[in-house]
Structures are given as C-alpha cells and as structure tokens.
C-alpha cells in the first residue's frame, strides 16, 4: 500500500471509524425495517437503528485523553468552601478570587481547583442519550404489545400473510 493510500485510509476511515460504523449500523437497521417480513425482525432492526444514532451522538462527545465526566471528590470540598465564602461575604468577583487564591496558597494539596473542560468528556450527549435509551425500551414494549395483538387477531407475524388476510376480509365484507 502506498503512502498516499494509507494517508487517505487514515484520513477518511480511521479518524471517522466510529461514524462509519454508526452509518453502517443505521443502514443495516433501515434495511431490516424496509425489507424484513417478520414484525419482530423489523423491531430488532428499529432498535439497531436507534442504537446507531445513540452511538453517533456519544462518539461526537468523545475527547482524546479525557476522562469520564465525574469530578474528583477532593475538588468538591475546596469548591464548596470557596463558594460558601463567596456567598457569605456577598463580595465582588475580585474578592472571591482573592479568597480562592489565598486558600490555595495555604493548602497546596488542593490544587485541583481549576477545571479544564478538555479533561472531561462532553456530558451533554450522555444525558440526552441516557433518557433516549430508557424511552426507547418503553416504546419497544408498546410495539411488542401491538405485535402480540396482531398475532392474536391474525395468527401470524409475517407481513405478507397479514396483508393477505386483511385483503381477504375486505373482499368478504
């Protein structure tokens, strides 16, 4: 493989590999939803489509070298002290900064004060997708309930047989 070829592969595939797989999974799910004859298979395809979108969102929130979006607990104590001071004095921003710098000078062990956003992965997509997963399983339950009712009334879960039975019932009535 030439240098140019490997460059193109790393440029277009490796850097976006998560997005590639998200699109591939999405298309697998879409294909299943369009062409599969069995309703349960269609629902599995729908769930795969859904996880592909969630994968896309979570991949967009990843930062290289970042940790999980949970702060350290030692930072919590310092922050609360600083916030309490600022709130108690009703001081200006300058005053609050002064207090913080004084306390960090006194206690060099609490230097984890500054929070750099690049150190933590983006929490916003996580929150949006977390609720989407739970709502997704609830809607999957509704869909399965509808599938059970269809099976009860038509005796089958195959789409073409259901359509044939509906057509026959229409011709009769």
């Amino acid at each position, binding site marked *: 493989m030439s240098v140019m070829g490997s460059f193109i592969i790393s440029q277009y595939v490796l850097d976006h590999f998560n997005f590639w797989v998200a699109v591939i999974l999405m*298309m697998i799910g879409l294909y299943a939803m369009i062409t599969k004859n069995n309703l349960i298979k269609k629902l599995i395809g729908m769930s795969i489509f859904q996880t592909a979108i969630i994968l896309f969102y979570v991949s967009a929130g990843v930062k290289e070298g970042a940790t999980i979006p*949970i702060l350290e607990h030692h930072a919590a104590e310092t922050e609360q002290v600083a916030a309490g001071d600022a709130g108690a004095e009703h001081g200006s921003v300058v005053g609050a900064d002064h207090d913080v710098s004084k306390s960090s000078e006194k206690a060099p062990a609490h230097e984890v004060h500054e929070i750099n956003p*690049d150190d933590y992965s983006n929490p916003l997509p996580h929150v949006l997708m977390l609720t989407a997963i739970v709502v997704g399983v609830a809607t999957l339950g509704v869909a399965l309930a509808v599938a059970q009712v269809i099976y009860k009334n038509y005796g089958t879960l195959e789409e073409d047989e259901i359509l044939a039975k509906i057509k026959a019932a229409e011709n009769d009535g």
Partner: protein
Amino acid sequence: MKWIGLIAVIFTGGLLLSAMDDFPNWGDAHSPANSSPVSQYYIEQTMTDSGVPNMVTAVLADYRGYDTMFETVVVLIAGIAIMAILRVAKQVPGGAKPTPAHEVGDQHDIIIGTTCRLLIPVLQLFALYVIAHGHHSPGGGFQGGVILGASFILAAIAKGLDPALQRLPEKRYVKLAFVGVVIYVSFGVACLILGENFLDYGVLHELLPTMSAEEARSHSMLGVEIGVAFTVSMIMFAIYANLASKGELEGGL
C-alpha cells in the same frame, strides 16, 4: 421489495458517508459539539452550582430537569399504553386462538428458586445504592430503577408470574408508578410556591435553615431521582408482566 430497499439504503448510506469528510475527527476536543459554551458551562460550573461531582446526574436532574420530568411521563404513558393495548385485545371477538409454540411445565426448579431467593435482595440493595449514590458515581434514577424492576422480573421468571403478582399486584404497581411522577412534580411545585421558577431547586434551602443553596440542589436531585426510580422500576415490571402473559396477568413465561 428487497431491491427497492437495497437501493434506498445504499443511496441514503452513500449520502451520509459522503458527508463524513466534513465531520470533526474522532476525539477532537475542539469540535463544535465539544467546544460549545453550553457543555463547557456544565463542566466548569456543576460543582459550584450544586456540589455534585457527577455532571451527567447534575445535568439530567437539575439543568435539564424539565426534560427529564417529561421523559419520565413518557415512560409512564408507554406503560399505561401497553396495559390498554393488551386489555382491549382481550375483548375482541372472533379472533384466531393460536397456541404458544411450546409449553413450560408448572414445576419450578429448586436450584433456580434458591439462587434467585439469595440473589434478589442483593440486586435490590445494589439498585438502592445506585439510586442513592448517583451523584458521586455512575448511576441514578433511571439505572437504579431499571435494576429494581429487573429484580422483580427475575422473581417473576424464577417463581412464576402469579407469586410475583401476589407480592406486587397491578393496583399497587400502577399507583407507585404514578407516585414517582408526583414526587418529581412536587419538587417543581415546591419551588414555585417558594417564589422561584419551576424545578429551580436552589430556593428549597429556605425549608431547612441548615442547608445551603448548593446542598438544597444536591438533595433535591436525590429526591427527583427517587421519583424517577419509582416510575421506571414499576413500569419495567408492568411491561414484563403484561407482555409475558398477553395482558391477562396469569400464567405467563
């Protein structure tokens, strides 16, 4: 049909993949999504605003609390819809009566029964830990609620649906599911009564004089998560109980 589907899928996938060149690289810390002021604000200010180390819980229950409230309502409505769909179907006359693909005997294995009896308390304790410790570690109302619901489902699988429904009858789980939403809304209404915006928990520190506004936020998040856990756990059990027994709530898987 297959060819039409294939053409549609290849066309859509090709369009999406051709747009891939414009995407930011994987793990790019300065992509538009990661450098937006909103998520930067969440990362930097969560600790100052509420003292909760887990940003995901803080954003879920506080900053975007309105969103989460209606997600909980969606889960509740989905559970009610499942019950309604399967109940109505029971009265449809003249339907075909298919038999299950295979029959399972009534006797339940002693090994499975004993294992589940030992396992279920541990599971429920872990679920409560996940709910209560969701501020400081991964977890929260949704995860803990689902684990709690899964422990009931495990009991229903191991001992049969009927003993599980004797412990947790339909009336009780529907009530508890509504109680969860009521807990959530009551936190919002309490903030309204105290003269702040709906779900702006900071004002709740007036109720307890020893609490600061940050602690009020942190503790209100716990209360809200407990409400979410009530609804989610009961609805998960309701979904299983109704789907496993075709809505008749007897026999079952």
